[in-house]
């Protein structure tokens, strides 16, 4: 893979192809690449997953720690999502303090999961002073576009897989004791991210690296089922190109369709 930026010529070609509804790899503009999920990819983690969308690969791991509740939510456990864009995964990623993209990725995963109601935070309380902190880390292993949608799937599956470690008599974690107890999760709620990208007047999903770099704007939605209804839980637009009202409204039916599609595709892995 070249370290060079996507050329203006490629961007122009993509713009023209998108207008005709075509892509280099033959997909339609709203198609996802094949998605696969592997479980338990790192056995010290309480839950861990590898998700591939096409050539994009992301690992997510869940660690559980005992800690103090936040002062403003004493009756709830905590969630932290972090991660980094490792130089391992792309010639475009550099070591050093996190840039905007490295900050944004875990924050988007965090909000999609936190706001969905998937985790029952009240059931993460151990005693008055001790609660479970759920820490999800997401690390891309190969970036070929659409890291965010892959990372949210990886995080959601890793949460589903995670089991509590044991506690000693003082309610401190003993990672040598394994339990079969799963996290307090809603059965119906499985948050996914669906990101629309815009180039010219075309909207497309699941871009490759090249397509993502050509895009002038992106909007990511976190969506999940909650009390029998599909709910958007998070949304964030990026890029300086505005989105029109008609464009935003046209995304809504596609969002519902893709939410069902992703849940259906992922069912066999859960």
């Amino acid at each position, binding site marked *: 893979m070249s370290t060079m930026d996507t050329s203006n010529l490629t961007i122009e070609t993509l713009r023209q192809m998108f207008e005709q509804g075509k892509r280099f790899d033959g997909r339609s503009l709203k198609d996802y690449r094949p998605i696969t999920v592997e479980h338990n990819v790192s056995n010290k983690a309480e839950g861990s997953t590898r998700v591939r969308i096409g050539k994009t690969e992301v690992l997510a791991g869940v660690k559980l720690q005992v800690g103090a509740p936040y*002062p*403003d939510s004493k009756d709830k456990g905590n969630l932290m999502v972090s991660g980094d864009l490792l130089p391992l995964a792309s010639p475009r990623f550099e070591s050093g303090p996190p840039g*905007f993209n490295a*900050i*944004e990725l875990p*924050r988007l995963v965090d*909000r999609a999961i936190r*706001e*969905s*109601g998937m985790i029952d935070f009240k059931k993460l309380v151990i005693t008055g002073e001790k609660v479970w902190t759920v820490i999800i880390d997401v690390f891309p292993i190969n970036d070929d576009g659409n890291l965010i949608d892959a990372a949210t799937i990886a995080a959601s599956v890793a949460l589903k897989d995670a089991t509590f470690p044991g506690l000693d008599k003082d309610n401190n974690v003993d990672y040598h004791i394994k339990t079969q107890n799963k996290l307090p999760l809603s059965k119906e709620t499985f948050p996914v991210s669906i990101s629309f990208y815009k180039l010219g007047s075309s909207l497309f999903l699941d871009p490759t690296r090249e397509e993502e770099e050509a895009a002038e704007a992106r*909007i990511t939605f976190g*969506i999940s089922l*909650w009390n029998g*209804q*599909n*709910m*958007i*839980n*998070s*949304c*964030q*637009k*990026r*890029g*300086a*190109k*505005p*989105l*029109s*009202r*008609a464009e*935003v*409204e046209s995304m*809504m*039916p596609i*969002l*519902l369709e893709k939410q069902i599609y992703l849940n259906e595709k992922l069912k066999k892995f859960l």
Partner: protein
Amino acid sequence: MALKREDGRKASDLRPMQAKVGVVPNADGSAIFTFGDTIAIAAVYGPKQLHPQHMQDPSTGILRCNYDLLSFSVSDRKKPGPSRRSQELSKMTQWALEPALDLEGFPNTVIDVEVQIIQADAGTRTAGINAAALALAHAGVPMRNLVCAVAIGKLDKDIVVDLDKSEEDFEGGEGPTDFPVAKLANTDQYTLLQLDGKIQPERVKEVLSFADESCAKIYEIQKKALKEALGE
């Protein structure tokens, strides 16, 4: 409407707004914008030559935004310096404003927009964007349009505009949803769209209608503040 707002506002009522330009004498442009108890101040410096040189763009000037909360502006003191949240919102502010600017006449330059929240009671990023748009206009930066921003909320099933902090902490039903929006004034072009909470996809267009109505009011306040600065 089922829901009664604590401060007696109707669903479509914004909090009282104030706007004033020319509040930082050192800056090329500056403004204060308030939504109720939320106070944002913005200052613009530039266009000025961008250093280091390799960041310069010979085809256009560039915009750089910084948003942050003053340490004492929130109940639990915020540690001074950039947080992940403030870095994200700085970028959101930049993207919200950029489409309104025409910087091709200022190659190799940068315009710095500094936004600080003096007092926070929800809606800080949108108050910051309103102040920043005013400060850019006050600085005389060529603009295609003003940018207006507002946070639309949903409390359980009710859509309301411009949540305050007590409403943001609402519990029950479908919970609180915070949906900050910015747009180019009097257009259907949205430059900031963010959301946290729970909303049915089919209700997004209602939110956009509330945002349009609110932004029209904000635009009037912004225009008035700019005219006042010109002594009209």
